[in-house]
């Protein structure tokens, strides 16, 4: 309840501030994300990250009050994304844009940035190419290639020579397939078959049959987090692939913490690589998880977008600090190039050239904790990973 009243207040405040310029020293930040609809969970995590950051670091920078305006974009919809961004910039006069869960939505905003003189800090949208669209984009999440690439080496190290790849048939899935294949084959493995599954697949048992038939020793999978993940993992267990000893590798989207309770014991032993685990053991993360759980209303809903949002807010705060409240997008972006800090996920920095975050990628295994709940246990660290997707382009 507290949350929505705050949002309401912000909205009304925004309406008032749009007409009355007496509040000029409030710097507004517009956050676009999927706050309702099928991806509402990820949107809520954006909000939790933002609120956690503001709760821990104050609501003002150098005397400038920060005000956040949330706008809902339930599913990928570039036209709506552009309309929301335009409204935030033109009407609500935000100086910073943040959020954005889906790639096409980010693509629709980038053409506006230069004219609007507003930087965009992406909290999630994970396609490499976004960064090349505008010099005013900074990203604090990850790219699918970035989180996937270490898996190639990991698989080979664990004695796997033949892998079948099974990914959801859409942009990020294809990115993952390509990145894994490249890394795995570079390490000496062989991708025997690559399956692309329609996004709306409900029953994965035929896919499992194919995996079994392929004779591969392991499966590399990528699916968007949420209901399909559940079906995939269940089918992996139930069709006996797990007992047959076929290993399972995936980027961490598959075992996001908020899905783990639903996955149950079936997820035990799954190996995933990702930039963040809620269980990450560091004082920064402990503080973050505490604040973010409070903001979202329960630790069980916490997932990776929250940390993207948290660090995104950090970048925005640094930008405000550097520009001292003046609207200068280029100066703001320049100020955070090369910026490094300790995030809840570990040490990170903004690559000066690509403006994408450089971070550790962790290998995690789903393990049962002392409290009987499953969690992603970090077992290996790949430090300072850049986005290989951009590096190769």
């Amino acid at each position, binding site marked *: 309840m507290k949350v929505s009243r705050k949002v309401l207040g912000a909205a009304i405040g925004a309406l008032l501030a749009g007409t009355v310029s007496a509040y000029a020293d409030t710097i507004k930040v517009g956050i676009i994300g999927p706050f309702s609809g099928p991806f509402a969970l990820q949107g809520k995590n954006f909000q939790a990250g933002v609120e956690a950051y503001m709760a821990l670091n104050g609501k003002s920078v150098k005397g400038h009050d920060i005000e956040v305006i949330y706008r809902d974009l339930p599913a990928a919809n570039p036209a709506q994304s552009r309309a929301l961004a335009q409204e935030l910039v033109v009407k609500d006069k935000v100086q910073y844009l943040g959020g954005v869960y889906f790639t096409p939505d980010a693509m629709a905003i980038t053409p506006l940035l230069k004219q609007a003189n507003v930087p965009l800090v992406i909290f999630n949208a994970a396609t490499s190419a976004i960064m090349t669209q505008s010099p005013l984009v900074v990203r604090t999440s990850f790219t699918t290639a970035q989180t996937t690439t270490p898996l190639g080496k990991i698989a080979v190290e664990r004695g796997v020579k033949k892998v079948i790849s099974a990914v959801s048939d859409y942009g990020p899935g294809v990115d993952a397939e390509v990145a894994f294949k490249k890394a795995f084959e570079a390490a000496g493995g062989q991708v025997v078959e690559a399956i692309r599954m329609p996004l709306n697949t409900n029953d994965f048992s035929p896919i499992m049959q194919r995996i079994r*038939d392929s004779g591969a020793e392991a499966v590399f999978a990528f699916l968007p987090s949420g209901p399909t993940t559940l*079906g995939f993992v269940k089918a992996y*267990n139930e*069709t*006996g692939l797990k007992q047959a000893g076929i290993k399972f590798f995936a980027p961490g989207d598959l075992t996001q913490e*908020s899905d783990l309770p639903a996955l149950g014991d079936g997820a035990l032993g799954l190996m995933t690589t990702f930039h963040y685990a809620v269980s990450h053991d560091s004082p920064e993360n402990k503080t973050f998880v505490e604040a973010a759980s409070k903001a979202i209303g329960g630790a069980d*809903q916490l997932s990776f977008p929250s940390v993207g949002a948290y660090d995104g807010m950090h970048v925005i705060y640094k930008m405000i600090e550097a520009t001292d409240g003046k609207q200068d997008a280029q100066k703001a972006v320049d100020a955070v190039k090369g910026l490094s800090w300790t995030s809840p996920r570990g040490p990170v920095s903004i690559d000066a050239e690509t403006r994408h975050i450089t971070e550790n990628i962790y290998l995690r295994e789903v393990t049962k904790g002392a409290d009987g709940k499953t969690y992603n246990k970090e077992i290996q660290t790949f430090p300072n990973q850049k986005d290989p997707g951009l590096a190769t382009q």
Partner: protein
Amino acid sequence: MQTILSIAIDAFAYGMALFIICIGLSLTMGLMRVVNLAHGAFAMIAGYIASYAARDLGLGYAVAIFLAIIGTVIISIPLERLLYRRIYGSPELTQVLMTIGITFCIIGITNYFFGPTLKSIPLPGSLSQPVDVGIRTIAGHRLFVMACGVVVAGGLWYLIEKTDFGIKLRATVDNAAMADALGVRTQVIYAISFAIAIGLAALGGVVGAEFLPIEPYYALRYMVTFLVVVSVGGAGSIPGAVVACLLLGAVDTTGRYLMPEFGNFFFYAAVIAIVCVFPRGFFGRAQ
């Protein structure tokens, strides 16, 4: 051969899961002439109740199913009285507007109270273990779903074709005014049929949750699938629904095995082909 058999088992299980969820919608659309797009929303409500009962209260699976059905029907009663009664006999598109509105509301409310995470319904040990059926292992709950599907189909057929209630229901459907004149209390018949349809949605939501996981967006996410299956079978026809579910389940499963990347093409191309050949569905009643 083993592969074919294995695919066939998967297809049958998936088809039966679809059948249990969809048959209630088929009844509302075919017999009561209400395009109830909120059908999935009721299945979802049942899933939440069952999840709460089994996971949070630690009750047994059977008890959870029972509570879910009863609970969902109870929730549906005021909706039937206040909203659905207004749209019996309305043009289909008006019904679409109303039931989409109801769906939106249910999604919003669920999201508000229960949050957007996936909800699981813990299975009893006997159903969660893989069972060896000779050629391969199959999850126990899949066998359970198949059995449920067969029981539901048989039970409904008996209810509609062989019982007094069935006779009254069919009379009401064919000519409500005439049935009324003959002393059939059509309002009551409608209310009971609605409750049965909702109860079936609830059952389907719970036992199908292993295929279609429970989360707030459930109601919209699978709406298209439900609508397609019901129409292909012919609204109101139990054998039609069985055939449609099994056939589409088979096309879906086989397509996804043979050429997963074109899985959707197979499915919808099959739908177009079937509809072009059987414009009223497999066992559709004449309009």
